[in-house]
């Protein structure tokens, strides 16, 4: 390693030799960097999983424009939208279809745990609004009190989910009615519920008699091939007389929901602070190590100054140490972080994974963190005055 670094730097790897000389401190420093890495990994992964979980239900549908109530910051929030606006929107020549989307939570009491299922009520006649994995089972929704269940729901045994077929349906009681689960689709638990369920609008209204088909939660629209959803949405904002409505392209609605979840909801803010705290912990740990190392070697550095070594040499030594800590601290951090995420994924069914992109991002952040710490620590170098050696 020493020879490799010497070949890389074109000089004796003073930073590496200094770190290796005090191995206990070096080990503690690596543990600290690894700990900061684990913090960041977990928080970034939680943020990422929140993004994936937020966007997941949008993937069940295929729409170009979504009309929502003014206070509907996300798919699951906000008041209802009068269906008349769907009909008004369809007067636009480039709007080709519309569907009301209803949502509510359904509880499935089970022996071990009651599952909370975010349930969508859709019009089975409008299968074009459903994603392929759901649309090809839409005939089952035509049956009264029939449902499609998210087979990745948290708390639902995989073998039990796999056994659900039209020929071997499962059933449970909701609001005094027996709901038959005739097939499944792939969803996944989110932060708001254990999984998803899709029923027809009629079944939905049977389950929730207080709801009305005239007031869905959102209105989904499709536009003609080649039409620009943003342009159509802008036009609809002028046509539709209720100016309080949020009329956005489906893509814009997804993006705004994501930003809302990450910046306005407590979970997103907490995860964001978690990342910040991880980075700050990393900066403090690396700074402490580097500044202590500089302080310990002030007389040696002063000697090198007296010998004529330029300032960039000392900066190079400090940054060399910072980069070594970043590289070697990242490896155990990534391994431990992956293990923790695997455990958390099994426990929560949240999409907690460490993607290569995330790993790269965290590694780059680690490098930047260590370099920033190194830059702060170099301020101590000015205290190395060769005249003090005499």
């Amino acid at each position, binding site marked *: 390693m020493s020879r490799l670094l*010497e070949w890389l730097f*074109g*000089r*004796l790897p*003073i930073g590496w*030799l*200094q770190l*290796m*000389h005090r191995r206990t401190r070096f080990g503690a420093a690596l543990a600290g960097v690894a700990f900061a890495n684990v913090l960041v990994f977990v928080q970034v992964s939680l943020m990422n999983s929140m993004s994936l979980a937020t966007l997941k239900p949008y993937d069940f549908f295929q729409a170009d424009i979504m009309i929502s109530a003014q206070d509907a910051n996300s798919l699951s929030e906000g008041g209802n939208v009068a269906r008349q606006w769907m009909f008004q929107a369809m007067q636009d020549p480039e709007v080709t279809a519309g569907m009301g989307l209803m949502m509510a939570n359904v509880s499935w009491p089970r022996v071990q745990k009651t599952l909370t299922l975010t349930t969508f009520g859709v019009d089975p006649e409008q299968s074009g609004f459903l994603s392929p994995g759901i649309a090809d089972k839409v005939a089952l929704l035509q049956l009264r009190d029939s449902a499609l269940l998210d087979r990745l729901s948290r708390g639902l045994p995989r073998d039990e989910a796999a056994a659900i077929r039209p020929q071997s349906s499962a059933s449970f009681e909701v609001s005094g009615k027996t709901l038959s689960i005739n097939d499944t689709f792939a969803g996944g638990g989110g932060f708001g519920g254990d999984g998803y369920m899709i029923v027809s609008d009629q079944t939905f209204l049977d389950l929730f008699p207080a709801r009305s088909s005239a007031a869905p939660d959102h209105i989904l629209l499709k536009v003609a091939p080649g039409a620009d959803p943003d342009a159509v949405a802008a036009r609809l904002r002028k046509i539709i007389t209720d100016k309080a409505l949020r009329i956005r392209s489906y893509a814009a609605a997804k993006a705004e929901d994501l930003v809302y979840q990450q910046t306005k909801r407590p979970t997103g803010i907490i995860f964001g602070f978690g990342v910040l705290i991880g980075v700050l912990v990393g900066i403090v740990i690396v700074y402490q190590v580097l500044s202590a190392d500089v302080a310990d*070697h002030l*007389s*040696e550095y*002063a*000697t*090198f*100054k*007296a*010998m*004529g*070594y*330029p*300032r960039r040499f000392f900066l190079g030594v400090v940054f060399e140490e910072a980069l070594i800590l970043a590289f070697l601290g990242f490896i155990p951090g990534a391994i431990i972080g992956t293990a923790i995420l695997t455990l958390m994924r099994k426990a929560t069914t949240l999409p907690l994974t460490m993607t290569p992109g995330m790993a790269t991002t965290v590694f780059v952040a680690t490098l930047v963190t260590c370099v920033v710490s190194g830059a702060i620590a170099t301020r101590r170098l000015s205290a190395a005055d*060769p*005249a003090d*050696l*005499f």
Partner: protein
Amino acid sequence: MANTDPIMVRGLNHWFGQGEARKQALFDINLSVVKGSLTVLVGPSGSGKTTLLTLMGCLRDVQDGSVRLMGHELLGANRALTETLRRRTGVIFQAHNLHDSLTAMQNVLMGLQVHGLRRTPETEAAARHMLQLVGLADRTDYLPANLSGGQKQRVAVARALVGSPEVVLADEPTAALDREAGLAVVRMLKQLGQARGTSTVMVTHDPRILDLADRIVEIDEGRLT
């Protein structure tokens, strides 16, 4: 004809502190060091010997007067010039100041690396030769923690001399050495002066060295006597 003295000091004054605490340490110093000579600075503690040494080695800023080192004026010298001149100067401290995580060989190589020389068989041979000259041929891979005080000082001497400096400034270099080792080091410095034209200025209280000096300069209370 241009003056070729590697060190020339004219009308040098120096102060420490500021305001009412300001105290003058050197008074109107005039001194020339001849090429290849061994000059010894003597005087009581606090007389200004070390201050003068650090000013000549551009380790301290010149405040008033003139110090010319290898032909370059140090009054108002910028950092680049200072670093260049330091590279051409060998400095031996009373405390060895070896890098604790580097072996004796690596510490000596630092004296070559400052000139941009990478580790090669040639530079290693030069460093080994220098360690051999100071009697440490069998200690090249030792860390300073495993060397005695005298051995550390000899490594420091080797580090200062391996780059073939034109001027050597030494502050009590034999303080940690026994009689024989101390004399050996000073003889080596003197031989360097004769062989390479290296000029050495040495602060010492060691009376054994005075016999080897080409010139003895005495300072008392900041003035040459």
